[in-house]
């Protein structure tokens, strides 16, 4: 089974998955918040396109609805909300210089290899070449975690969290052609509420410690001194 022997739909899905993975890597290297949010919106756009492709190919209307939900949430609502907050709190010029950029990037690549290793049993026994895209979605999840670890700004944490959800949505679409509608709506609702709560939280954190650097929130310890 080579990619050249697959039909156009499979090739398109695999290319989309590669691009989604690329977006995750691009997010890892961003120092400025507006650009980070823009790349995240791009990733959401790619996901919407993938959903539309899948809906077209499989003739399932509920994937159109998922695509629409993803678009409104992940491309329009969340990035614009984050951008507004970033500009309102005047941190759009802060550059978070990552000290160990190369290390972070290379650990990202090793996370991709690791997720391939983890999902080997599934891919091996399956006949669908499309399942290989599941590896990319797991690595998007892990890269979102890496993004959260390597950045100190709370806004970057939220973008990482949302990109984890992006990876999960991609996994659901690739492996299972979308979850049942009820579950999708529930997940979308949860993401929406989470985004709104994050917005409220930025305001509280900012009022309490006057910056959004989460390293400064360190009053509580495991073992109290």
């Amino acid at each position, binding site marked *: 089974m080579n990619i050249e022997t697959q039909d156009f739909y499979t090739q398109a899905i695999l290319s989309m998955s590669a691009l989604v993975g690329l977006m995750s890597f691009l997010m890892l290297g961003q120092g400025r918040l507006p650009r980070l949010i823009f790349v995240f919106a791009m990733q959401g756009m790619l996901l919407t396109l993938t959903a539309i492709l899948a809906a077209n190919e499989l003739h399932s209307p509920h994937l159109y609805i998922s695509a629409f939900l993803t678009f409104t949430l992940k491309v329009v609502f969340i990035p614009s909300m984050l951008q507004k907050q970033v500009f309102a709190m005047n941190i759009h010029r802060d550059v978070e210089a990552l000290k160990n950029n190369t290390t972070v990037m290379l650990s990202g690549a090793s996370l991709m290899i690791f997720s391939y290793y*983890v*999902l080997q*049993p*599934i891919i091996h*026994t399956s006949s669908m070449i499309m399942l290989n895209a599941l590896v990319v979605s*797991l690595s998007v*999840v892990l890269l979102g*975690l890496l993004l*959260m670890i390597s950045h100190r700004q*709370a806004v970057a*944490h939220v973008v990482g*969290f949302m990109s*984890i*959800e992006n990876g*999960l949505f991609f*996994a*659901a679409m690739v*492996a*299972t052609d979308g*979850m*049942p509608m*009820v*579950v999708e709506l*529930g*997940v979308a*609702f*949860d993401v929406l*509420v*989470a985004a709104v*709560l*994050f917005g*409220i*939280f930025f305001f*509280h*954190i900012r009022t*309490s*410690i006057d910056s959004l650097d*989460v390293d400064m*929130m*360190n*009053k*509580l310890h*495991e*073992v*109290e001194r």
Partner: protein
Amino acid sequence: MIAVYLLLCLSVAGIAFFALTGHHKDIGKLNTYISAVSLGITIWLATTVFQYGTILSESKAFLIDSFNVYLIVLTAFVGFTTSLFSAPYMAHEIELGKLTEARLKLYYSMYQGFMLAMYLVLTTNNMGIMWVAMEGATLATVLLVSLYRTPESIEAAWKYFILCGVGIAQALFGTILLYYAAEKLGNPENALLWSVLHEEATQLNPDILEISFVFLLIGYGTKIGLVPLHNWLPDAHSEGPTPMSAVLSGLLLNDALYAVVRNKMLVDGATQSHIAGYLMMGFGLVSFLVAALFLHRQKDIKRLFSYSSIEHMGLMTFAFGMGGALATFAALLHMTVHSLVKSAIFVTVGHAAQIAGTQKMAQIRGLIKTQPKVGWGLLIGTVAIAGFPPFGVFTSEFLVLLATMREYPWLTPLLLLGIGIAFAGLFRHIQPMVYGEKPEGQLPIKANLIPVMVHLGLALWLGLAIPSFLSDWFSQATLLISGSSL
């Protein structure tokens, strides 16, 4: 089935009512009434199940069997008694100036929101909806943890949000993998329904289910508070208002464990290896020991008891992981009594903190002299949770030890060590608080300790003699979960 719909609709109505209407003087009492009606509905549901056995709704969306029926009643019961406690407690907090009335509205509407999420987790048959409800429970309580708006509480709420959110995302990945494995069996519409999956468990691909269980254990395990994913738990339970701590410790942890065990039932049916069990045993044992050790170094009374929650949840996870009839029965019993005793403890702790004006244990002294009921409540509660006979916790811990001695005798000394260390840690801190010298000017407060007495009384009753309907349910659930009966 009407009972389930009624229950859920009542909670939704509660949320809407508290959110939309203005602030009442009696908002606490309204909350109590709503919780009381919910309790009534759940008791009605329980009697229906008692008469007719397992109920499955026509759309197969809801499933009430012997595993979750008593958990539903327990949830409603603890919710009701905590609301009894929270009404005067929160009024006192407003008097102290720690809260505004607008935030109190938020508190009560999110209280009902949290109860709704709990009911949904317990009654749903759909694994996806279970996930959605778990995430909903997190979201409902996040704002409550930071209710006091101090820097520590905001930090605790942020940690809670991020850690639980990320953990739950892993659980969603596990659910997706489960759906993928199940979709191949036939009807994709039914692929997430637990009842269908349980019947056809042997046909599911074991490799996929193993990987999915790892993700599900990590994900829901974050919400249970398994070490090393437990970092949010002491912070969230100690910085939030006390009724919130009582409900989180008593109910949310139970529901997360319930979700893990439901998934374990599927995995056990599919794979022939015991990997799910070993994983749960490993995590549970580590949580048990680490939490027992951490108990000693705490300086805040609520953190002390939240580490005790971690320890007990670790023990329950260990027992469920071990499998077998005895351990499963013990774990089910432990879930019930731990819930009751822990929420009672948090209620007394809340009163103690209000009496002393602080949560630091070094500054709380002489409770038994100031307000004997609070002092005795705290002492008996600690005695109960540490595992003294004749309370229910002793019975369940004894059964777990018995089962461990039969199957993994080399682990028994570790368990005994952990129980001993936890016991020492708890009493070392509680003793001066209850019996020490009463500081100047410490006055008793208006407190409703009936919930505490009822909870401890129930725990005592369950330790001495489990009523027959409950033990029937436990036996049926044991059969369902472990495949063998007592």
